[in-house]
């Protein structure tokens, strides 16, 4: 369905893997205006199909791969694509966002999105080139790890002149083939990690999708877009987080800050500090192991690390992996983490869920609930454990189910660290209670980003009171909506740091930063007003280049207020779909360790006051007391 808007290719392709039927899926300009792209577009498509009875591993499920209107337009960090589906981990919808260049090539092939449904009769990989879709047998690829799979596919895409056709790929590894519930989908060396999207692809018997094409990505006002993009790049390069800290240290640079603030998950979230944190920190990673920084397409930040494993340059670990496979299991051997990170990517497994499942199992063993031989700080044999998980061998077959299901079998629900079935990220929320709320209410389960990432205010970027509940619910909603829309437009969430004017981060000891830190938690009413009536903000913020960039790329009118409203729509749409699957306030929960046990026995505030926070949050969102969007709200947001 052609579009009047720039940034879009105007076509969504649906492939029924059972029948091999390929058809164009209608997606109108009105739907583009409302649901923008990427995860929100995917939610719209899923919402139009799902009734709430569908299982992840069933022909009724869809795997929806989407781009945003800014993907591939040259806007900074706009390489992102998204994969949404019913998650085998949570049973609700999940969305998993990925960088690299697959999204760009999907658009070069003329597609905004790809909908996959059904199940292939035989193991298959799909080749999409411009308007052609070919199904290939994947018997020879099945069982291969992710790098070898992609190298073999490149060989298959070699042209007569010997060169490999420029292409983007997504593929699964052995974990996805064997339906490990937290399998990832890998694209080059970037990973769509969370929610078990790889297992859904494995169930579909789909090993890989390769896309390539020669179509031009249209831009509504190219001259203005180019001029604006130059300014935008310059701004991000000068910003203390996107221009200095992230390029120098990557996400791993947060380890030391988290340690100082008591939010470094240690020994399966039983504490917030690890005495050996420095040995597994971003500083040591940068000083001793990082060969070169790497970035996704058109990214000025270049946060990815490159390390050497067996003489080969490979992707280094992100913060989450470093923390959860470091202090999380009481391991101070950084080289081991580098190796495991590589192995997990090769097997196609989410490092966060794998690490947390492992630390749950270690604690269950320590407490005598499950005699599995796994012990904190004993790291020999962990590589084999990961292989066993991916191939579902022995104890690995059980670990492949994740911590929620294991705790239902063996006990220890209080220390199975998940929300809605998906394991939490590396931030210990008892010293960042706003993020604790975010983890609990996040649409995809225990996610820091979908949860609003309030840690940026709670001690990392700014330093507001980490354990007060004041203001946290309204701020959580604001940041969730902001990030929802950044994702929907096809950009990396790291560009959201631009929202914080550089002086706030450059001068943490200045009077004005101290004032902001002191006052912000008590500005809940102001934030609520902005959340409730974003249309009042009919402007472009000077520090937030996204709105103008969106306008120039697409031709859609966009103000900051409208931007926020689109984010709110996306967040509520996912919640509404999850409602059909049974999500309500009871499911917005955290394990009792985090809400009942004090992290610091001397500090009565060092636990997540979840019920209190939820109540304010639901009210701020305009949801009912069951934590569900009201019909009135859904109508106002044009979701129904």
């Amino acid at each position, binding site marked *: 369905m052609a579009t009047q808007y720039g940034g879009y290719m105007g076509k969504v392709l649906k492939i029924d893997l059972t029948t091999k039927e390929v058809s164009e899926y209608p997606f109108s300009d009105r739907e583009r205006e409302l649901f923008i792209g990427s995860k929100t577009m995917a939610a719209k498509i899923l919402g139009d199909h799902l009734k709430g009875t569908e299982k992840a591993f069933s022909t009724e499920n869809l795997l929806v791969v989407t781009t945003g209107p800014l993907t591939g337009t040259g806007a900074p960090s706009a390489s992102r694509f998204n994969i949404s589906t019913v998650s085998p981990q949570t049973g609700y919808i999940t969305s998993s966002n990925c960088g690299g260049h697959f999204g760009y090539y999907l658009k070069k092939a003329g597609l905004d999105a790809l909908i996959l449904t059904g199940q292939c009769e035989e193991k298959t990989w799909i080749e999409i080139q411009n308007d052609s879709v070919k199904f290939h047998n994947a018997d020879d690829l099945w069982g291969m790890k992710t790098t070898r799979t992609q190298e073999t596919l490149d060989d298959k895409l070699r042209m007569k002149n010997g060169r490999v056709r420029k292409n983007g790929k997504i593929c699964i590894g052995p974990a996805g083939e064997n339906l490990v519930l937290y399998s990832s989908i890998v694209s080059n060396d970037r990973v769509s990690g969370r929610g078990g999207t790889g297992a859904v692809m494995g169930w579909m018997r789909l090993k890989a999708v390769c896309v390539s094409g020669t179509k031009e990505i249209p831009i509504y006002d190219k001259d203005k877009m180019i001029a604006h993009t130059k300014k935008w790049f310059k701004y991000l390069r000068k910003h203390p987080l996107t221009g200095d800290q992230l390029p120098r240290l990557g996400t*791993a640079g947060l380890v*030391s800050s988290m340690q*100082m603030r008591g939010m470094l998950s240690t020994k399966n979230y039983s504490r917030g500090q690890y005495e050996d944190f420095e040995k597994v*920190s971003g*500083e040591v990673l940068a000083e001793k192991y990082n060969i070169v920084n790497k970035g996704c397409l058109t990214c000025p930040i270049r946060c990815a690390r490159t390390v050497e494993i067996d003489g080969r340059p490979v992707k280094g670990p992100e913060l989450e992996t470093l923390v959860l496979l470091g202090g999380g299991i009481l391991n101070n051997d950084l080289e081991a983490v580098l190796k495991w990170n590589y192995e997990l990517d090769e097997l196609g497994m989410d490092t966060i869920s794998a690490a947390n499942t492992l630390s749950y199992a270690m604690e269950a063993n320590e407490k005598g609930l499950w005699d599995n031989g796994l012990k904190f700080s004993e790291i020999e044999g962990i590589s084999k454990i990961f292989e066993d998980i991916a191939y579902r061998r022995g104890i690995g077959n059980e670990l492949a189910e994740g911590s929620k299901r294991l705790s239902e079998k063996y006990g220890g629900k209080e220390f199975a660290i998940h929300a809605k079935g998906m394991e939490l990220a590396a931030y210990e929320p008892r010293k960042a209670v706003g993020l604790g709320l975010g983890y609990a209410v996040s649409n995809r389960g225990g996610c820091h980003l979908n949860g609003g990432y309030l840690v940026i205010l709670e001690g990392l970027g700014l330093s507001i009171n980490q354990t007060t509940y004041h203001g946290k619910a309204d701020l959580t909603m604001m940041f969730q909506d902001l990030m929802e829309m950044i994702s929907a437009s096809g950009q990396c969430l*790291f560009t959201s740091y631009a929202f914080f004017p550089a002086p706030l981060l450059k001068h*943490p000891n200045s009077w004005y930063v101290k004032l902001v830190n002191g006052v912000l938690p008590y500005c809940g009413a102001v934030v609520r007003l902005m959340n409730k009536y974003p249309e009042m903000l009919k402007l472009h913020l000077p520090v937030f280049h996204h709105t103008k960039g969106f306008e120039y790329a697409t031709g859609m009118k966009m103000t900051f207020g409208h931007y926020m409203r689109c984010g709110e729509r996306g967040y509520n749409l996912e919640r509404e779909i999850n409602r059909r699957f049974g999500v309500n306030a009871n499911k917005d929960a955290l394990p009792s360790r985090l809400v009942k046990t004090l992290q610091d026995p001397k500090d009565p505030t060092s636990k997540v006051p979840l019920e209190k926070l939820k109540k304010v949050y639901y009210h701020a969102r305009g949801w009912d007391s069951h934590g569900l969007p009201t019909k009135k709200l859904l109508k106002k947001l044009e979701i129904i």
Partner: protein
Amino acid sequence: MVKVKMFGVARLKTGVSEFEADVHTMDELKNSVPGMTKNEVKDLVILVNGKAVSRWYRFNDGDEVVMLSPAGGG
């Protein structure tokens, strides 16, 4: 004598991970960081024995100081 540990961007910029300093006041500390001017140090988060302290804090022998910069990631 206080023990100072450096983290974050400041550590990579100066190449200094830790040092000892014979200082009694914050002002003296800010003047004693190798490779950094007082103005640059002013913009670091400074924690003493794990806690934020006022600029008038007087150091005790054996205090452990941490210096780091605001950070973000995901």
